[in-house]
């Protein structure tokens, strides 16, 4: 089995989708000859031709808007927004168009569209490149939001996203692109959207995370288990919308303690919804307030100091300890 980085896993999934279904088209800024600014689409244009993999003019609303048209027509566009922060320019096309055409048309037209976009801090990019945008899209109805945490998941979730008959926003954390390798089967496999993954079992406290924060949560869990002797369960949400409420309930119902971790600002973030779900589904099991470990309520921090702000294992461990206090 090959050992792939997340970039390689995504590249493989894209190339398999191109090979498998002539309706799949890949486009965006610099995805063609240049192979994407992160090399995710490297060589795909050469292999599948300029009709299948092509560069667009520099206009995010244009990319999503034309993709909506292609999808409604019957194709399976996989559009790239070069950095998720620039999806704000396409916000209307995503919110009022991609996510609504099925609803508006009474199901006559659908938008089987995947929008891929890198995001995430810790890699010292210029402004707007690192912003975590998932919460905006979580509140939008009619679109799914997927954030893989590993190369294996990235491939399986991306195949599922391309299969999905509805629009999917597929957010790829830049720090995970090349930070580690994993055994990834070459053959196509699908990880269903909407299902969280218990990446570490435990009994005393649940840490809920996604994307790059899964690794941070796992590191904190190991530290706690070693240092404090408590058993930490870690849940990787994998899909932010729809949220796997049952998985959250099952775990927190069992542990009675929870920490939720994300890079995005706190106010109105995914953490709030996770807490609301816990409140609704297992409040009586809850022994301590759910802790939120997030970036502060401000724009994403500038490169030189971003590491100070992004949740790290120490900060997550401290939050876990607070939930474990008697």
């Amino acid at each position, binding site marked *: 089995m090959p050992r792939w980085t997340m970039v390689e896993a995504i590249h493989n999934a894209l190339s398999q989708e191109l090979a498998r279904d002539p309706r799949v*088209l890949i486009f965006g800024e610099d995805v063609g000859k240049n192979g994407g600014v992160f090399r995710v689409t490297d060589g795909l244009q050469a292999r599948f031709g300029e*009709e299948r993999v092509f560069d*667009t*003019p520099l*206009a995010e*609303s*244009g990319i*999503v*808007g*034309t*993709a*909506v*048209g*292609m*999808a*409604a*027509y*019957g*194709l399976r566009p996989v559009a790239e927004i070069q950095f998720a922060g620039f999806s704000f320019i396409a916000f*209307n*096309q995503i919110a*009022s*168009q991609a996510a609504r*055409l*099925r*609803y*508006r*048309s*009474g*199901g*006559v*037209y*659908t938008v089987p569209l995947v929008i891929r976009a890198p995001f995430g801090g810790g890699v010292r990019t210029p402004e707007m490149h690192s912003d975590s945008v998932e919460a905006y899209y979580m509140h939008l*109805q*009619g679109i*799914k939001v997927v954030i893989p945490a590993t190369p294996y998941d990235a491939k399986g979730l991306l195949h599922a996203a391309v299969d999905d*008959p*509805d629009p999917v926003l597929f957010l790829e954390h830049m720090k995970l692109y090349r930070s580690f390798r994993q055994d990834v089967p070459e053959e196509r496999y699908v990880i269903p959207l*909407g299902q969280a993954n218990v990446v570490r079992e435990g009994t005393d406290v649940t840490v809920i995370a996604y994307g790059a924060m899964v690794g941070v949560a796992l590191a904190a869990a190991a530290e706690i288990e070693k240092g404090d002797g408590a058993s930490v369960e870690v849940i990787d949400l994998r899909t932010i919308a*729809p*949220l796997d*409420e*049952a998985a959250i309930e099952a775990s927190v119902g069992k542990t009675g303690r929870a920490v939720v971790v994300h890079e995005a600002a706190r106010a109105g973030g995914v953490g709030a919804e996770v807490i609301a779900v816990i409140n609704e589904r297992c409040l009586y099991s809850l022994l301590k307030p759910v802790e939120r470990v997030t970036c502060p309520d401000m724009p994403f921090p500038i490169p030189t100091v971003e590491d100070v702000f992004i949740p790290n294992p120490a900060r997550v461990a401290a939050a876990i300890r607070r939930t474990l206090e008697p």
Partner: protein
Amino acid sequence: MLSIAVDRVYQVLAPDGKLVDTPPDLAPDRLLAAYRWMVFGRQFSDRMIALQRQGRMGTFAPLNGQEATAVGLALPLAPDDWIVASYREVLAYMMRGVLPLTIAQVHRGEVGIYPRQANCLPYQIVLGTQMLHAVGVAMGIKYERKPNVVLGVCGDGATSEGDFNEALNFAGVFKAPVVFVVQNNGWAISMPRSRQTAAHAIADRAAGFGMPGVVVDGNDVLAVYKVVAEAVARARAGEGPTLVEAQTYRLGAHTTADDPKKYRPEEELAEWVARDPIPRLRAYLIGQSLLNQAEDTHLHDGVRAEIQTMVDTLEALPPQDPLVLFDNVFETMPPALASQRDALRRDLGRE
């Protein structure tokens, strides 16, 4: 390039119905059908306004005065071509096979189901956004090497939106088989065209995106037909997009919620009433002995009866089922939404 130049307003019929240029090669039955659609549009619009006033209809955007553009742009299309347009172009949609009943349902505030083979995306409320969808559909057509074209239609106001301009640019770059038709009806609610852009004509936008632009008399159905037909042929032949500006006029209010007296000079209205597209075509048809007074009356009566039947059917429909909405968010309903639907079903006493 198009054979029709941008520097003048192209016309075939003068306002009195006299020919000022070669008429298109349209058989009499198609001419009469076009005329009937124009009459249908006018009566449909008037009836919707009346229903709205009686509280039997939602907000409606009258199309009075713009019938020649709507009919002229839909007429040159082949069955598998597409139209992607906004709320004001419902007449063109009806010509594609979207039922007037369905349009009325949507305006009444219900889910309207278009026949898929009409190849019309649901009429757009968010101004300008649909122009990118039109280009996307056209890119799909080109990718599949189909011989079809797309008409992307919007108003003069919508041309100020970024999306309109991005659509032109994408279409130019990808040589997409799309024709952009701007229904320049002089106003965007209270904003006159002269203040919407400093450009001389909206069609002047074309050169900046590498395509031809044409200005046509939008109250002259033969001129609109000829210009759009040529642009469609060009697109079908793989020569890329065209921008057509149809200069017409909104004779009525912006919508049933609007009062144009607040902002629009009466004289301007009077001028345009004199250029009404329906009498113009009628005069031509009569002049060509394709129609006489009795036939015209009969045609009007037929349209009236058809619309009455539509209204009767509409009003006999069962009320919109709220639970249906839950089915159209995703193909597979997520668990949270399903339980929200179940809660509502209980609430409505419909377990």
